[in-house]
């Protein structure tokens, strides 16, 4: 069953066309990540799903029902915001129970749901504290708890990890993944961080300039990108793009190779001058110059390469991608 269907969704602010003919289908229990550079419309898309923005045209269905005219509180959704957005005048318990009180749930239900959520997020000790007395990570957990107690059909996350520091981000990411497993709920998650997208998603939607570029599982997108944008956006370090005529004479196309698909090969076709070497222990990243183009090479293990060294590279078989001048993939 589909939990969320977007059909030809368009959104304009005045003359600015922000979302262009978006068609997405999300199955029940799926974890979908909208990813794209800032300004690509991914947050706007999430807000139209939530009902915080009206769609200009098109149809939004949640669990099969058209919700274009339904106010946010009646759509059966819960949203977690980047800035946590906790109610400053309520304590943790109050924050979590407000929506249920508004929905006129019984006291026993509210108590049971709050207890359940606080157990899942280990917030038991903080129920009587106010948001100002909590750390960033705790606040984000309360925000997630506020979403859980509503038992929504659809969880919406708007860049929930952006305000956390690196270590906490990793932990919270795992927590969200666990939560998804425990609840089996449908989740839609917006981020600009491709690592979050790759690690969390069952399905990634790559957006650019208000258009869907590609939809698929993380590995599908990684191994089989539809165009140069998707190829360059996913993966870290990013894919290298070089003029294809370095390999084939006279080709006007662009060659894309992932850093890990390049290898040191004395007989290889690519001639490079090393500019900088990053020794990460497990990996060695070599940033080099190849006929005036920057190229990144990722070698596994430790390699004693010095900057300034001249090397030759080969491309792993079947791992090169070709794109035409418009960025479309050539197969």
């Amino acid at each position, binding site marked *: 069953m589909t939990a969320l269907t977007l059909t030809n969704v368009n959104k304009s602010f005045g003359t600015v066309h922000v979302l262009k003919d978006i068609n997405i289908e999300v199955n029940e229990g799926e974890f979908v990540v909208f990813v794209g550079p800032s300004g690509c419309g991914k947050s706007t898309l999430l807000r139209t799903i939530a009902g915080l923005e009206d769609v200009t045209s098109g149809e939004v269905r949640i669990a099969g029902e058209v919700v274009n005219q339904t106010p946010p509180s009646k759509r059966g959704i819960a*949203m977690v915001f980047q800035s946590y957005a906790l109610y400053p005048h309520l304590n943790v318990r109050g924050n979590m129970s407000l929506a249920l009180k508004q929905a006129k749930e019984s006291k026993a239900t509210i108590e049971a749901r709050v207890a359940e959520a606080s157990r899942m997020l280990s917030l038991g000790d903080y129920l009587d504290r106010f948001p100002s007395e909590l750390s960033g990570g705790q606040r984000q957990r309360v925000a997630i708890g506020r979403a859980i107690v509503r038992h929504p059909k659809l969880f919406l996350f708007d860049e929930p990890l952006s305000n956390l520091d690196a270590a906490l981000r990793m932990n919270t990411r795992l927590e969200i993944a666990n939560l998804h497993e425990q609840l089996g709920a449908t989740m839609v998650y917006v981020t600009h961080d491709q690592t979050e997208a790759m690690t969390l998603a069952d399905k990634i939607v790559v957006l650019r300039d208000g258009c869907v570029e590609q939809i698929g599982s993380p590995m599908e997108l990684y191994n089989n990108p539809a165009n140069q944008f998707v190829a360059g956006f996913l993966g870290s370090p990013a894919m290298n793009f070089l003029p294809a005529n370095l390999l084939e004479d006279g080709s006007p196309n662009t060659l894309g190779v992932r850093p890990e698909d390049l290898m040191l090969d004395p007989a290889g076709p690519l001639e490079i001058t090393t500019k900088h070497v990053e020794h990460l222990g497990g990996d060695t990243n070599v940033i080099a110059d190849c006929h005036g183009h920057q190229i990144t090479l990722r070698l596994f293990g430790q390699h004693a390469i010095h900057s300034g060294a001249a090397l030759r590279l080969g491309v792993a078989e079947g791992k090169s991608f070709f794109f035409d001048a418009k960025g479309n993939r050539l197969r």
Partner: protein
Amino acid sequence: MNTARSNPINAIAMHGALILYTLIALFPVFVILINSFKTRKKIFREPLALPDAESFSLVGYQTVLKQGDFFLYFQNSFIVTVGSLTLILLFGAMAAFALSEYRFRGNMIMGLYLALGIMIPIRIGTVAILEMMVSTGLVNTLWALILVYTAQGLPLAVFILSEFMRQVSDDLKNAGRIDGLSEYTIFFKLVLPLVRPAMATVAVFNMIPIWNDLWFPLILAPAEETKTLTLGSQVFIGQFVTDWNAVLSALSMAILPVLVLYVIFSRQLIRGITSGAVK
């Protein structure tokens, strides 16, 4: 900030300047206060001397309390000030919320129109206002004053408050909408508490001119039962003879309530003025 604090010369200079300013600002108040306790002769002979056993006199206060219904004036001023402030804050905040929160046709124009009042003094329209009050029968009622002061205070209130309300996180308001709060609940429960410092600023900026105003009470509500404190004090100022004891005593007493209201708002006010800089 820390270096300025730890440097003694800077600290002395800073405090010196502030103390000097405080003295200058408080001097007129001080002169009014001490002279209100002196005999008429001493007021003119030694205006800056403190009242001593010989010159001490409560005659001014006695006159004030005997002549005219001073407590009624006081009550009128209080009703007008508090009433106007309440309406200014309530409607100003509501208009500011609408302007900052909702996208609608003419939003920008509406904002400009509301801000126009800052640039055009309301007293220019006195004649028209008076005609309006006469035709609605509001002359010589406190409502006339409250309505005029509300109109006078709204532009600045809308201007300041809408600026502050734009800073209230959208996420918070949206979280409220998703949780099923009504727009009114979002406004009163989420937004207003967060702009409280700005509300206090607006309150203080409006309170003092309203309390001190002579113009509109004189024109719109000069009747005995609607006289405000400032207007009431005018009975002691004549064209040829002025009862300075009474005037100074009346003014001394008029300072008190403003002082009390100011103390109530001031903690918030300071936060309001510095909130942009500190956060």
